[in-house]
């Protein structure tokens, strides 16, 4: 894989200055080098926990879903 393919693209997200200042305070001693890297970390954590919550709420597996679809086809509810 070439170096080019590893390149991560970035975009700018605006947050209130007052919040950025709070984050700077919070970052002290954490090892994060910038507000951006800290915010990226926090957002990843938040998204991951939401996705985990959604997965745990999924009442059925793919296999179960296929079985259900077959019964729905047999009953004429889906084609």
């Amino acid at each position: 894989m070439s170096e080019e393919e590893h390149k991560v693209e970035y975009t700018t997200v605006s947050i209130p200055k007052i919040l950025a200042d709070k984050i700077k305070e919070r970052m002290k001693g954490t090892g994060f080098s910038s507000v951006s890297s800290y915010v990226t970390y926090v957002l990843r954590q938040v998204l991951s926990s939401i996705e985990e919550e959604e997965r745990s709420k999924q009442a059925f597996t793919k296999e179960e879903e296929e079985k259900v679809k077959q019964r729905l086809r047999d009953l004429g509810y889906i084609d």
Partner: protein
Amino acid sequence: MIEPHGGKLINKLLSKAEKKKILGELNNFERIAVKSETIKVIKNISHGVFSPLEGFMNENDYNYVLDTMYLENNIAWPFPITLDISSEEIKNIKTDDQIILENNNHEPIALMNVETIYSYDKKKYAKRTYETLDHNHPGVYNVLNYKEKLIGGEIYLLNELKSNFPNFDLKPIETRVLFKEKGWDKIVAFQTRNPPHLGHEYVQKAGLTYVDGIFINPVIGKKKVGDFLDEVIIEAYKALIQEYYPRNRVVLSTFETEMRYAGPKEAIFHAIARKNFGCDYIIIGRDHAGIGNYYGPYDAHDIFDKFPDLGIEPLKFRSFSKCSKCNAIVNDKICPHPNEKQNYFAGREIRATLKAGIAPDKEVMRPEVAEVILRYENPFVV
């Protein structure tokens, strides 16, 4: 899609191996025969229609529900779901036992972990659920005739209850997959215990206008004398849908449960069950699940204001009629014309007409629907 009530769709089905093991050891368990309506409750709990319930209510939930209309864990639930038991039956049962619930033919239906056995006040149960103690109310009559004690605890389904309408017997997991397959994002539920007249069609289509699909979900089960037979309701809806509904916008499926006639509280119960089926909205009409004059005509609308956390939203419809001046089906919010211009869809009159073997006026009931009903010598519960 809307999440099930309490956040998780309950599934109380056992694996083949677990089931085989228990069925092979039946003689080791105390066995209790339960009524056919209780078997429907077991089926509904097992398949998640009554999520978050995992069994018959324990004493704490029973008391919380009667006092607050919430379960002990702070999830809305309008009335107790209980199993009554006689002093004779309870002789050989104690807390922490596992027992078998069976039908009248001694066929095992479910395994139950007995968590609590408790005394209860029948009058408090009836009054808090039905808001009356009048013995003429069928729900009150039932509760006052319950056996001496209640037992609570988790259940596990051992044998599937055979439906009288297997082609229309969808479980919540199936409706949820079905709605997803159809690409429906927002779904409205319609609860019914009658064949459709044009007023029903009007509210269903009014609701459907704002969402992706409608889930028509007739109640199948014990009803009062004079109500329509279950098969009549199903056949009538099949005829209506065939002729007058876009096929990709409607699902017809049964909800096997007894009518309790608990009015506003039953409206909440109906809403919770439909939320578990995957519906975002439920149509609530005038005197929903009412009987006689026990409840105000719009009590079932008002009660939803007490449950802002219910998840599913009521679409509140008032009484509707055919206005001769508007030449349209209307309700009192949208039509300025007086009573003498209104032809109300009176269930009692429609039933009397059908009972006389006559099809109601086509402005009241679709001819195809009337024709289906009139095929039956007696389309009513006797």
